[in-house]
């Protein structure tokens, strides 16, 4: 069980509410009860659903759009769509998979709209050229860094990776993020993207290759 699954498990238990807690109840049963309440338009159940999934949906959308403002707006839109469409959820997949599918589809539409409007405000990779070497960014994630030079290097690598992800082909990028960031299985990604598993694997492979090339070109050194 990944940390995300663990969090989802306990959040689901909280969502079902204290009055119905029973340790023998499985996650699937908890989810079924939550869905029943959602279909019955129980506003409190929906509040719990938003609390449970907001960070994961926001994380996914942020990686897909590479813009905080757009990601915040689209995260809200995902939940509005979930509320509207919950009656059509047939339970053929996990609730989280269904929510991700809505998020991915809305991301695609928003990305297309933004491309037409030319409002992408991504930092060009070239501006990140003055940098410290990757080897100095031992922990890259700035939250884990203590030394200022490491922090600087970490921020630069973070920025380069984010910018590089944004440059990966959109269709490949969604599969890469769902696999390597959200840690979903190939089968779950296939359900979300409505692609065959083989195509998902192929796209992930190509996305990794593209990302590696972009990052290494900008860093001027191999990823280790």
């Amino acid at each position: 069980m990944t940390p995300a699954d663990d969090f989802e498990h306990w959040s689901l238990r909280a969502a079902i509410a204290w009055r119905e807690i029973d340790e023998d109840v499985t996650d699937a049963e908890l989810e079924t009860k939550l869905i029943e309440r959602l279909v019955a338009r129980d506003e409190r159940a929906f509040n719990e659903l938003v609390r449970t999934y907001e960070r994961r949906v926001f994380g996914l959308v942020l990686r897909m759009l590479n813009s905080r403002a757009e990601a915040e707006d689209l995260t809200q839109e995902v939940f509005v769509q979930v509320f509207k469409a919950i009656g059509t959820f047939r339970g053929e997949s996990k609730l989280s998979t269904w929510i991700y599918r809505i998020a991915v589809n809305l991301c695609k539409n928003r990305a297309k709209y933004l491309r037409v409007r030319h409002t992408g405000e991504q930092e060009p990779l070239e501006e990140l050229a003055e940098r410290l070497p990757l080897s100095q960014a031992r922990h890259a994630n700035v939250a884990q860094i203590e030394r200022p030079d490491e922090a600087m290097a970490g921020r630069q690598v973070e920025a380069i990776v984010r910018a590089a992800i944004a440059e990966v082909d959109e269709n490949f990028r969604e599969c890469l993020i769902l696999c390597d960031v959200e840690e979903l299985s190939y089968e779950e990604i296939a359900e979300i993207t409505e692609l065959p598993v083989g195509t998902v694997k192929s796209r992930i492979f190509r996305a990794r290759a593209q990302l590696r090339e972009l990052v290494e070109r900008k860093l001027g050194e191999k990823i280790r």
Partner: protein
Amino acid sequence: MTNDKDDDPESEAQIRALLKRSLAPEAPARPVLGEVQRKIRQRSKGKFYRDGWSTTQSRVSYALVAGIMLLIVAIAYFVLGPMGITNH
């Protein structure tokens, strides 16, 4: 010709590690729930999330508040009502 699907495990691990190191989990700056409730209320023309109880962020339920209020009313009745405590 190499098969696309046969990703080199070492290369895969390197990219995964790079992504993990670089992409720290982030939270939205603005509260999502309040905005979602507002949008649903607007689009449903007030059918959902119409009152303070449904939009409150507090986990205290109205059943609990109603129970406390009943208790206060009962205490007031016994103190001030016909069987009330009087000084003789």
